[in-house]
């Protein structure tokens, strides 16, 4: 079994590996965190701890899933707020985790309703021995509008509360940002101005996932009604990566330390977040679906990836892809690339034909007798929808041509991607 150093330094704290449970039910007590540590997680962001005066009263049932064809959990909707355990219990658990697992990182997630709350909570979790603080400025389904994403979308409040936390504690601190905002940069900058050392993102995306067609109510049905609430899991990964990119390319935030969250389930997802600028990685939904054990393949797969990339430390990979994601207006629009169809692989299903006709440019000719598609280059725009729908990988990128009136050498155009090839023939 391959063995490589996965450790990272983040906000001055050493992590044996970058994989953390994000703040949620997956780490809401000592036993859960202990089991997760035993199974190999590098740290936990303990379930968000609120002020004593804020009474938590949760709904039941509280989850729903988005499916597609045979695939469950494409995305996951939850209506849960913050920790259900008492403040005392939570502080007790934090303390014992740190005692029993001194080499793992215990991060306290906190949320208050006013400056005093934030400051007090920061103080309490620091006394309990936490290594770091995460400010939950982003839960989208709080029953109080003084909490959660309503605060996180208001840069003034963000800055004020960050300052309060820094008054209460000198631990490294990250502000957890909501994606329910057009531009995350102002909120992130406000938190840094208030003293945050880094950013955690994303929290869940506001959603209505499904409607019960008979009862005409959103799901889950809570005694006849439902609410807008947070969406997470695989479906939100693209949204999370987009925010990482925007943060890391904003003026002044190029070196922003980020704890990446949103739909991480495989080592490939993890590698993507790292390439987009994350140093640590947080996970909830895939753990809820599959259990802590998923960390084994995330760690092992990441080690193999490092080996393949000839990289000794993950730090060498952080943010490497940011420079290759540029504004749309900066992309090369002088060429197009035609698809290439491998007739030996083609099984004659005609899916490419249907998608090209109904969703692209009617550029695939279909031979009704041989059941073989061919490309009509006079119509093909090179969108490669056909590549994505072909069930056997028979369509790849083919000839590159320069558009009329443009200069340039087709051979210099870079379009290869392992996304377009299958690892085993």
């Amino acid at each position: 079994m391959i063995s490589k150093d996965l450790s990272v330094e983040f906000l001055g704290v050493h992590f044996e590996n970058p994989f953390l449970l994000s703040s949620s039910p997956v780490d809401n007590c000592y036993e859960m965190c202990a089991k997760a540590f035993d199974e190999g997680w590098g740290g936990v962001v303990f379930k968000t701890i609120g002020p004593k005066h804020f009474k938590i009263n949760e709904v039941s049932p509280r989850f729903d899933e988005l499916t597609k064809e045979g695939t469950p959990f494409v995305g996951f909707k939850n209506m849960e707020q913050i920790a259900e355990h008492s403040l005392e219990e939570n502080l007790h658990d934090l303390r014992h985790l740190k005692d029993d697992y001194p080499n793992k990182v215990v991060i306290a997630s906190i949320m208050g309703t006013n400056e005093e709350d934030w400051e007090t909570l920061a103080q309490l979790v620091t006394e309990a021995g936490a290594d770091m603080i995460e400010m939950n400025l982003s839960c989208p389904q709080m029953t109080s509008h003084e909490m959660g994403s309503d605060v996180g979308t208001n840069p003034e409040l963000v800055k004020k509360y960050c300052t309060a936390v820094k008054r209460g504690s000198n631990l490294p601190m990250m502000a957890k940002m909501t994606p329910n905002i057009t531009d995350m940069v102002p909120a992130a900058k406000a938190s840094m101005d208030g003293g945050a050392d880094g950013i955690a993102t994303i929290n869940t995306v506001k959603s209505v996932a499904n409607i019960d067609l008979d009862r005409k109510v959103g799901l889950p049905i809570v005694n006849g009604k439902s609410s807008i609430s947070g969406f997470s899991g695989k479906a939100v990964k693209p949204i999370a990566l987009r925010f990482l990119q925007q943060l890391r390319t904003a003026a002044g935030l190029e070196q922003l330390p980020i704890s990446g969250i949103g739909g991480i389930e495989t080592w490939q997802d993890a590698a993507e977040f790292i390439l987009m600028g994350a140093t640590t990685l947080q996970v909830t939904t895939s753990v809820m679906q599959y259990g802590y054990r998923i960390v084994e393949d995330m760690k092992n797969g990441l080690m193999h990836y490092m080996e393949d990339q000839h990289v000794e430390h993950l730090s060498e990979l952080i943010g490497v892809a940011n420079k290759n994601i540029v504004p749309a207006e900066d992309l090369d629009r002088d060429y197009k690339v035609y698809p290439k169809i491998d007739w030996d692989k083609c099984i004659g299903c005609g899916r490419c034909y249907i998608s090209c006709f109904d969703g692209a440019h009617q550029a695939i000719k279909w031979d009704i007798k041989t059941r073989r598609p061919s490309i009509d280059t006079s119509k093909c725009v090179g969108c490669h929808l056909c590549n994505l729908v072909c069930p056997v990988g028979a369509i790849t990128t083919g000839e590159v041509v320069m558009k009329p009136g443009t200069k340039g050498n087709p051979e210099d155009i870079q379009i290869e991607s392992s996304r377009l090839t299958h690892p085993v023939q």
Partner: protein
Amino acid sequence: MSTKYEKEAPSYTMTTVMEEAARCLLCHDAPCSKACPAGTDPARFIRSVRFRNLKGAAETIRENNAMGAICARVCPTEKYCELACSRTGIDCPIDIGGIQRFVTDYEEQEKMDILRKGDSNGLNIAIVGSGPAGLQTAATLLQKGYAVDIYEKNEKAGGYLRYGIPEYRLPDEIVDVEINRIVNLGAEIKYNVTIGKDVTMADHDAVVVAVGASEAKMLPMFEGNPYVETAVDFLARVKEAKGDIDNIPASAVVVGGGDVAMDVATTLKRLDVKNVTDLVYEEFDEFKASKKELDATQKAGVTIVDGYVPTDVDGNTVTFKHRHLDSEMTIKTDLIILAVGQQVNTDNLGVDTDHGEVQHAGYKTDDEKVFFTGDIAQGDKTVVWAVRKGKAVAEEIDQALLGGNK
């Protein structure tokens, strides 16, 4: 182009293997893994496939089972992992063998080199026999730091992997790849040496007898008959020639009803023998061959007649009688193949066997330096059990010589 005899069933692609892996329920305390005799841990490697970690999947298989690519092809999975699979509660078990084959093909395609030789402990072990049991014993010992010499009476290594299981189920090339991994780990294979006859072992710290049941059984009435060949001789001859043998008969009669008989009958059909009749002592409800093998053989066009025993033979004409019915059948044929079992020969090897196996559990003999494993040890007579027994005997040797300490 490979011939009909050589052609293996098609394998998965990246897309189709994910579809199959997606059927896996990722069970808690997975029954499939508990049911694998060799501890290959299918639940673990299927989960790795599911989470797109093919290299990790290959590591799990290889580290648990040095014959991983072979077991993927020849394991009677319906008796082991797939029998236990929870998915059966919904429809049919996960194709664990197929996924294992895909992963080990990937391992080979990527030229992964997973097993690591242990730091030398200065001890040297002799293994008699290079079948799967001997090979696995070698792999485990080498990883623990022992030096290993394997003595093989044949020209090539592999035992029944090489000379028994037909090419269309287990290509020679796969056997080569698996053996090379163990040679690369440091095993020395000495060919054409029959231990007990040619030489005896003295200068080794321990000897492992892994000679299998490598001799065919004969029925007295067929002795010396020029039309008669034993199953394992026939299978070895066809495999060596890659199916290109002289004098393919127009018809053949197979005697026997185990998996070996099924392999012989199916091989004959793949060689385009027109009439293949298999006469079997057992009746269908007491059949020895696995259901999978039986179905495949019948699908290949073999006529299987159950409940008959040979009573008389005159050159190429055999007479069979039904065990219970008043029925007799006389067949004249070009070739008679006896698939009535294999027997053990442990002469001068310091291991006593009776009815094809040592009559006590475990892997030790009265001589503290002599161990045994594989088909001659108690337990199932399959490749995956040979792997299990190979791992186990290596542990026993390590305990005996070093108390399990490094």
